[in-house]
């Protein structure tokens, strides 16, 4: 690695208000070395973040293509376009690939890896070699799943419910199960790295309540990684043993209970939904103050809400099983606790809105994505409460209402936050500015395409159309065609960023150290940052988000 900072770099470190001049090319982490070995055997958290970015983008394309097949098949009610079996394999691949190979690693593994050391003023994560191992474990798991996809696909749905997945499905279930088990370890290693780094490697003066909310939410996400993933690893090990050696624990013929698998599965899978949501909230909590040039409203409440969410989410998994033969007592308990989970999310949404109040807004692309996020995430969250109400659940469980609900959270929430974050930190990651007009066009396309695709599905849901149906009664065709049409607009919206962002790598304007006048240690260093992140030891501001316009803060007077 080249020396930490050149002469003029030190001058910048002494006087914080002059943004450090853009270091000349060879000094930043992208151009310090360019051999293949330096990329595939790197221990630099920034390069590992880019490795993850490349692999999850590839998997996003695979998942999106599978979604395209699903929407194509549903244009006609009688399944003339696609056989039932192909449709089942398409929606299973869409589920497995999107959940485990895109959504879960998307924000933590790319932005988390890249930004957490920068934001807390550290040189790297606590265990750099472990970080690289987590990428290779991710790719191994991905390999197994791709083998299952290539050989003939899986037709059990991403939930792999026994006894269908263990005894009655004769598709390539085993490689898919092994793939998902292995990719679970990649999440555990990433989570472990983050928890230890955030606890032990903060720069001097960086106390917990000076950390950006992005770091708080990733700390909460890492807790969920550590506490939830092992249980699904075991559930899948038991499923593999059940399918390969006929262990019988989930096989009703010997007295095993398939509902036990559902308990173990959902103990992980509901917190996994919060693994997808919390990093999105972190990104939005960085974008909104930056583009409103105003301090985040109620910083401490948002921080506590992140940790609160990470703990309460472990008490609610039963709301996926109200009608699956669960005892009435359990259903009552899980329903009541599910209502408590909605509170921390509501806190965050109202805090973002209050931050925008009396700010000085710049409606660039990241802010458009953030505002889209707030709107769609609120809708997604509250439709979740519909499903948590016992009587309503009996009507809309396993219908398109559920499909619409979780797409509003995952696509309307996490994907918009991912794209917003991608645009917000693109100058910091690549040292180039993306083209602003194209950014806004793609944000608009995605927002419109998303709503046209998924809002009709709410209506289909309470009309009673079950999910995972290859053929459906003709009276639902109109809304399904509308939804499929919307999905084409959404697909177009996704293609734009892939084009103009890559284009900006060579032709984009050079980005200064802090293009958005944002606060946070990652903006104090150059874009792209030097291999060891900071020229000298970074100076930690007294107050996080100390933007010129100070909002109400509990008893803290504003500068």
């Amino acid at each position: 690695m080249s020396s930490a900072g050149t002469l003029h770099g030190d001058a910048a470190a002494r006087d914080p208000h002059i943004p450090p001049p853009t270091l000349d090319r060879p000094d930043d982490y992208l151009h310090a070395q360019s051999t293949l070995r330096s990329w595939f055997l790197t221990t630099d958290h920034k390069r590992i973040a880019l490795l993850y970015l490349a692999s999850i983008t590839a998997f996003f394309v695979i998942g999106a293509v599978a979604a395209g097949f699903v929407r194509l098949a549903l244009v006609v009610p009688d399944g003339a376009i696609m056989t039932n079996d192909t449709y089942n394999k398409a929606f299973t691949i869409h589920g497995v690939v999107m959940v485990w190979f895109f959504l879960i690693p998307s924000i933590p593994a790319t932005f988390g890896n890249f930004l957490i050391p920068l934001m807390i003023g550290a040189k790297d994560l606590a265990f750099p070699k472990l970080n690289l191992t987590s990428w290779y474990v991710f790719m191994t798991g991905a390999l197994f799943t791709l083998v299952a996809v290539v050989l003939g696909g899986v037709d059990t749905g991403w939930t792999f419910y026994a006894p269908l997945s263990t005894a009655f499905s004769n598709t390539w279930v085993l490689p898919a199960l092994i793939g998902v088990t292995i990719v679970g370890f990649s999440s555990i290693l990433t989570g472990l790295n983050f928890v230890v780094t955030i606890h032990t490697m903060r720069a001097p003066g960086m106390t917990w309540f000076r950390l950006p909310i992005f770091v708080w939410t990733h700390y909460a996400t890492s807790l969920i990684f550590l506490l939830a993933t092992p249980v699904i690893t075991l559930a899948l090990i038991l499923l593999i043993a059940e399918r390969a050696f006929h262990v019988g624990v989930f096989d009703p013929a010997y007295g095993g209970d398939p509902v036990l698998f559902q308990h173990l599965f959902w103990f992980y899978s509901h917190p996994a939904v919060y693994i997808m949501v919390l990093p999105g909230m972190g990104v939005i909590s960085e974008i909104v103050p930056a583009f409103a040039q105003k301090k985040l409203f109620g910083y401490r409440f948002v921080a506590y809400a992140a940790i609160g969410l990470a703990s309460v989410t472990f008490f609610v998994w039963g709301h996926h099983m109200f009608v699956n033969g669960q005892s009435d007592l359990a259903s009552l308990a899980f329903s009541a606790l599910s209502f408590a989970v909605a509170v921390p999310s509501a806190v965050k949404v109202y805090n973002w809105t209050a931050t925008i109040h009396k700010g000085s807004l710049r409606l660039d692309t990241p802010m458009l994505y953030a505002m889209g996020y707030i709107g769609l995430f609120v809708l997604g969250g509250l439709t979740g409460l519909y499903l948590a109400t016992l009587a309503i659940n009996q009507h809309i469980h396993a219908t398109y209402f559920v499909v619409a609900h979780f797409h509003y959270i995952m696509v309307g929430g996490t994907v918009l936050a991912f794209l917003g974050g991608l645009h917000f930190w693109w100058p910091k990651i690549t040292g180039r500015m993306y083209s602003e007009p194209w950014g806004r066009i793609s944000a608009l396309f995605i927002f419109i395409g998303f709503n046209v695709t998924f809002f009709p599905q709410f209506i289909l849901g309470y009309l009673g159309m079950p999910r995972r149906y290859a053929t459906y009664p003709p009276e639902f065709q109109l809304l399904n065609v509308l939804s499929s049409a919307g999905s084409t607009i959404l697909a177009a919206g996704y293609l734009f960023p892939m084009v103009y962002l890559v284009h900006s790598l060579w032709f984009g304007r050079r980005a200064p150290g802090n293009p958005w006048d944002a606060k946070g240690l990652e903006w104090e260093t150059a874009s792209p940052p030097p291999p060891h992140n900071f020229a000298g030891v970074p100076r930690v501001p007294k107050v996080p988000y100390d933007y010129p316009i100070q909002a109400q803060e509990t008893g803290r007077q504003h500068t």
Partner: protein
Amino acid sequence: MKAESALALWPPAASAAAVETDHIILGFTVLTLLLTVPVFLAITYFALRYRQGEEADRSTDERRSVLIEISWMLIPYVLTLFFFGWGAKLFIASRHPPPDAMVVEAVGRQWMWKFQHPTGQSEINDLHLPIDQPVRIRITSQDVIHALYLPALRLQIAALPDRTTEIWFKADRTGTYRLYCSEYCGTDHSVMDGNLTLMTQAEYQDWLTHGHAQQSNVAAGRALYESYGCAGCHDGAVAGVKAPGLAGLYGRAVHLADGRTITADADYIRAKILNPNENRLAGGGKQVMPSFRGVIRPDDLDRLVGYLKATDRVAEGAQR
């Protein structure tokens, strides 16, 4: 099937409980709008009002932030809890059937439903029930997890293998509504639906006595023909299995291995299904067909034979 307009925006409700569920949904929608519309309006208004460069009063005051935080955390929570209570009350009510309810046995198996009425009649995929009388459906599954979903009654319950779960309702409106399987159960999960026909008491008794006979056995037989796997071999779906085509078998002369030729009547087909090794075909290869004795119930066997009788006209059988 009741022709609904292409854009019906609200499903028909056929029981008092269904109407009450609708009230919960509508009430909760009102609350959701109360909680979210202000957020949407606020964001768009603030985005325009406080844009960079717009001069606006951006002074801030300190006092109320903790109070605001607590209020917009607890007020929505308490409001939503009311709906939790209401929903729970209705849910518990739907789990405790009255003692005098009429019991219908339902069995789900891969890709068809079979309903057994208390008076003995059974039907495949379709269900005829009386209104104004509590009905209890006891459900189990013979293979994977299915779920009986009656949207018109706003009810669904899982069909678990080797376990009986139940649901009850008291319909109050006649008509034909949809019936689905709502737990993913494999390839033809979406074919496993049918019609729930609710009739007055008199019509139901009338249907029970003789209406049952006209029920199209061909569709039911076809469902059985597929579900028990006959289609797999006899329609040539499974490669490498030499099984005689069954289209037009009924009434045809059949040459047996021991030289006799007999006409394939209902008894012959029934005996062949129950015991395939008896009077083997002439020149037939290795006998691969499993015996269905004890597997197929007598009433299903009648339907299967009825279906085979009717296949002489249509080679593929009545495709629903």
